[in-house]
């Protein structure tokens, strides 16, 4: 039996543990069961621990050990204090409102970022909607390219007109173009869906490949 090569060695355990958890999760397709629950709770507990470890190792400790103590940036002590105010939610209820300070600071800082940065990638998209509706090459008219440009132009405008909520929403042309826009949006969604299936199948193929060639050692 190839499956038992290197029985009980670290590599053997790795493959068998992997196979066990793979099968445990796949069993959910039949119904929710004890094996799945076991994998589920391992995954949740394990990843919570993993996040704590990686933040501890890569952010909390280097900042406090290197930046604060070694380089003397004592502001991190203040930041740490503000951050710890969040935990007052779990203490006596008369101090729970203190948690609003770190929340307000965290959210507010990103509100500023979004205000400044949201328009940035969109500007390129607006200028990309400027189309040349009469394409010529070396002085002669190109039919297919012109049709494509028209389709692109109309699709952009009609899709955007679907999202008219208050102004001009009862105007007949807006309603019609909005409806057309919705159909074109569905074509786009269909394209996304069709393109995605490949990716999703790949994910399972990766697992099946593991089970067949690494665990059972057949095929391939």
């Amino acid at each position, binding site marked *: 039996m190839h499956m038992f090569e290197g029985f009980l060695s670290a590599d053997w355990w790795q493959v068998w543990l992997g196979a066990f958890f793979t099968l445990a999760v796949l069993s959910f397709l039949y119904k929710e069961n004890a094996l799945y629950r076991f994998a589920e709770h391992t995954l949740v507990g394990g990843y919570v621990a993993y996040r704590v470890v990686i933040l501890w190792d890569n952010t909390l400790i*280097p900042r406090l050990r290197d930046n604060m103590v070694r380089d003397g940036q004592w502001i991190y002590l203040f930041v740490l204090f503000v951050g710890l105010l969040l935990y007052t939610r779990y203490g006596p209820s008369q101090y729970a409102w203190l948690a609003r300070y770190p929340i307000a600071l965290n959210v507010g800082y990103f509100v500023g970022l979004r205000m400044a940065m949201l328009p940035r*990638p969109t500007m390129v998209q607006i200028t990309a909607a400027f189309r040349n509706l009469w394409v010529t090459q070396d002085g002669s008219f190109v039919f297919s390219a012109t049709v494509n440009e028209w389709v692109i132009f109309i699709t952009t405008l009609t899709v955007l007109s679907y999202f008219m909520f208050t102004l001009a929403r009862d105007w007949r042309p807006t309603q019609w173009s909005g409806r057309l826009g919705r159909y074109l949006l569905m074509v786009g969604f269909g394209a996304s869906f069709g393109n995605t299936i*490949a990716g999703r199948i790949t994910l399972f193929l990766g697992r099946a490949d593991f089970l067949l060639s690494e665990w059972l050692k057949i095929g391939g």
Partner: protein
Amino acid sequence: MSIWERFERINPRFIFLLMLFVLITPMIRPIGLPVYITPLTQALYDWVEDLPPGSVVLFDSAFAPGSASEIEPTMRALLHHLFQNDHKVVMMAQWELGAMHSSTVLDELAAEYGKEYGVDYANVGWRAGSENWFIGLRDDFIGGMVGVDMSGNDLTEMPLTRDLAAVRPEYFAGVVCFASGNPGVDDWVTYNPNMPLFVQATAVQVPTYMRFVETRQIEALLSGQAGGAQYEQLVGQLGEASRLMDPQGAGHLLIITLMILGNIAFIVNSKKRAAK
């Protein structure tokens, strides 16, 4: 109940079972469907071929192990290509699990080509702080990384990373972003538009990123496993992606067949319902 009525109300478990069968069979007995190379994959290959020797390429693993089957083949093939041409690789990660997963791949390939850590490749990993952290790298790479790599080695002491002051074109030849969602490509496009950006995305994201390709914000875009299979062919290192293209086709055929049958059932049954 007619067969069509039964078919319309089929238990999803039967579909799961059929799918399992259809996907596993061609893995054991391959058919050998052809692979077509797209211009967007060729663009990445050509860029690597034209790089001056010893260039430093930044890898950004913005994916979790979950989507590794789609992304890892390209990462492997590209590492083969880069290491064969004597280029250097610095790996960072916008996803915390990406850091862990890719370090395994990187170590494996580096060992195969006898590359030395800190000289030919380095792995700086992930840091907390999402966009705040990411934007900071544009101006101070080492400071943003808190001065250490993933294992806690000092970045200023390693020959490769010592001079990498910022994530800018002066220091890195380009970024290859291995993206399976957000954060990922959008961050590069928004906050660091000057870096030449090459993307291996999961297939699901490709339609959305097409608009970046059109506006030249992305230089090359590889789509899921198909992209991996194409790159493997270009480099001549056939691997997982090329092998799994057959079941891929079979799976698609099954879904299309099911769709057609489902629609026939739907039409037959709605005629019956109308007749009643």
